[in-house]
């Protein structure tokens, strides 16, 4: 009951007219800034950080919560409407969200994004309030071997993601892993796969790869198909701009799964919303009775990842507030804000500064409510973007893509890579090679490699460390079970296709 009372006190402190005004400002500004490619939640928070420091600590942190949620929603908006992932965690939304937009269901997809995010955020805040000590312990117990096991599981899920074409999915994943090794090795400082190029030693930016594979490739595909017909179907009634009851019913399981998964992954330092959203998408697809709809505009393909993406913010606060460890880039900016206010995040924050700690948790929830109230009515306005003729829209997308990629590290080489990856994405689409495994492997690759190498250093090169530690062994066991299931179901599916009558 103590935690509940503290949370109620937190809400009481956060729910002042001034704070509500600032959270609304945060949501609007976060949405407007976060809609620009390359400016995901961490960058948006960093840009707007000076705005918050002139306010009272609780008010400033509440403003940041509003900005954070606004920027997250903005990421899903551009992914759904324009197939531009402005941040890594919104890449997965391009897969089904943009397909829904093409079918005239951009509004329902965006509505589902906001609603599933709201539900997941509620789950995240409740779990943060009551399960924080337990999950914090899990986060502490999660060392390199556990990460290595988790990454092995995640990479297995990546292969599952490409169930329609496992071999091409495998190759796509291999290419992603290889690209992730380009640059300087963190352990030894040696250059890898740079082919002697100095510019390559900085490695490849995720945004460059994702915007090229998705946004530029999408433009090329649409230009190739263009026939004077509008590319997007526009709904004629306002009601069609929001998710239906059937959509919500269909997405219940995906939201539940995404919420729990997002919270748990978010609580692990380094886990992050990208891993959470990808894992959620893959698991939702694999557990669906109709996985063949995924990739063609399945509402659960939006609901699951968005739920994970939003409940992750609750989970990510656990290592930050209880251990003083920022697990993600966004929480690192929040840590900076707390330090600017003279507050030291850690186990003592809630006992020494309860007037800050609990309102921060409450503000996460308030930020999400404000997002829902302010952005649901805005959906029809956003959707009108698709009414812009494509001959204006696609040059604008290319211009924004250049800005998004160049703004990351002011490198013209990144713009060259953008054009190259755009061509690769186009070829992938023409050949039926899934791009998502490549991106997922690109994100997971460095985490997996570092975890394995750190584990082997810890165990003096004994691979038994991966099965001797209980959590790692359990994760690897689940991964092995999943692999066996994958092999059996894949074999049955192939047999069913070869002998359709016999399988009836």
């Amino acid at each position, binding site marked *: 009951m103590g935690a509940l009372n503290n949370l109620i006190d937190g809400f009481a402190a956060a729910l002042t007219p001034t704070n509500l005004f600032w959270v609304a400002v945060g949501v609007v500004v976060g949405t407007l*800034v976060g809609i*620009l490619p390359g*400016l995901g939640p961490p960058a948006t928070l960093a*840009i707007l950080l000076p705005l918050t420091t002139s306010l009272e600590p609780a008010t400033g942190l509440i403003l940041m919560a509003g900005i954070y949620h606004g920027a997250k929603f903005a990421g899903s908006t551009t992914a759904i409407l324009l197939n531009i992932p402005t941040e890594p965690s919104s890449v997965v939304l391009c897969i089904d969200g943009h397909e829904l937009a093409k079918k005239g269901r951009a509004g329902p997809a965006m509505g589902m994004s906001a609603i599933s995010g709201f539900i997941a955020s509620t789950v995240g805040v409740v779990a943060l309030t009551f399960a924080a000590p337990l999950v914090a312990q899990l986060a502490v117990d999660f060392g390199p071997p556990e990460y290595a096991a988790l990454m092995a599981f995640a990479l297995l899920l990546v292969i599952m993601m490409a169930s*329609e*074409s496992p*071999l*091409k999915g*495998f*190759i796509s994943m*291999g*290419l992603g*892993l*290889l690209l992730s*090794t380009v640059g300087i*090795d963190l*352990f*030894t400082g*040696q250059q*890898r*796969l740079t082919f002697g190029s100095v510019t390559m030693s900085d490695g490849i930016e995720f945004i460059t790869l994702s915007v090229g594979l998705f946004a*530029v490739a999408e*433009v*090329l595909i649409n*230009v*190739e*198909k*263009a*026939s004077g017909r509008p590319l997007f179907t526009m709904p004629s009634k306002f009601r069609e701009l929001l998710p239906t009851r059937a959509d919500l019913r269909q997405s219940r399981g995906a939201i539940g799964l995404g919420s729990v998964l997002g919270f748990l992954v978010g609580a692990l330092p380094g886990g992050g919303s990208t891993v959470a959203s990808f894992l959620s998408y893959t698991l939702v697809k694999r557990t669906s009775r109709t996985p063949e709809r995924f990739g063609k505009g399945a509402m659960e393909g939006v609901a699951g990842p968005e739920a994970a993406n939003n409940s992750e913010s609750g989970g990510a606060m656990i290592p930050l507030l209880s251990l003083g460890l920022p697990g993600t880039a966004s929480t690192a900016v929040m840590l900076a804000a707390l330090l600017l206010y003279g507050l030291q995040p850690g186990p003592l924050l809630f006992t020494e500064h309860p007037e800050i700690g609990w309102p921060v948790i409450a503000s996460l929830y308030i930020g999400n409510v404000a997002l829902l109230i302010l952005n649901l009515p805005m959906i029809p306005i956003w959707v009108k973007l698709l009414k812009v003729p494509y*001959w*204006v829209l*696609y*040059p*604008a997308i*290319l*211009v*924004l893509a*250049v*800005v998004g990629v*160049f*703004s990351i590290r*002011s490198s*013209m080489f990144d*713009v060259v890579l953008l*054009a190259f990856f755009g*061509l690769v994405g*186009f070829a992938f689409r023409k*050949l*039926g090679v899934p791009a998502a495994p490549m991106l997922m492997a690109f994100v997971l*690759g460095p985490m997996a490699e570092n975890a*394995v*190498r750190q584990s*082997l*250093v810890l165990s*003096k*090169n004994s691979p038994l460390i991966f099965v001797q530690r209980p959590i790692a062994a359990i994760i690897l066991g689940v991964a092995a079970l999943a692999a066996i299931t994958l092999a059996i179901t894949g074999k049955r599916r*192939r047999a069913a*296709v*070869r002998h*359709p009558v016999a399988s009836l």
Partner: protein
Amino acid sequence: MSIEEPAPDGPIRTELPVTEEIRGPAEEARPRPDRHAIGQLTFGIISVAVGVAALIDAAGLAKFGKSGQPGPGLFPDIVAALLVVLGAWLAILTVVRPTRAEPVEEPVEPGGFKRAATVWLAFVVSIPLLVLFGFAPAMAALVAFLVFGVERIRGFRPVLAVVLVPAVVYLLFSVVLGVDLPESVLFPV
């Protein structure tokens, strides 16, 4: 008509997915090479080539450290070798079983590929223009080429698009948000 048979991983096409309306009578009579299979074979070969190039580049990196711990070359080597095997497998499968697991592509308009190639080339050409003339002029030139040259739109609206798209983006990013945009080497500000 394309020949379709049930396949392990989805419908099969043995020729280009060109619709009846698009294909002319002369093309109907002439047997066409299976472009998709050629594309898939090329993809397999490119994957092998990328893997081999990575293996060569990573050859100088230590696979294991002095005390036997994994070195910087181990992970790239494993992935590159995997890529070689998988790429070769795909290429062999394409040759041995050419009708296996090909995707159904969406129909494209005649000249569509040429349009897409032109757009991509224009985008590539705009990169040196970014360096030479800076963001706003280079992007205005790109938008102008796409609108007037590729889309062949005429009137006042395209002129407005050519002016407004780069100008609004420049103002928003560079002036309002202070984000770095490409600057001209010829006319430094």
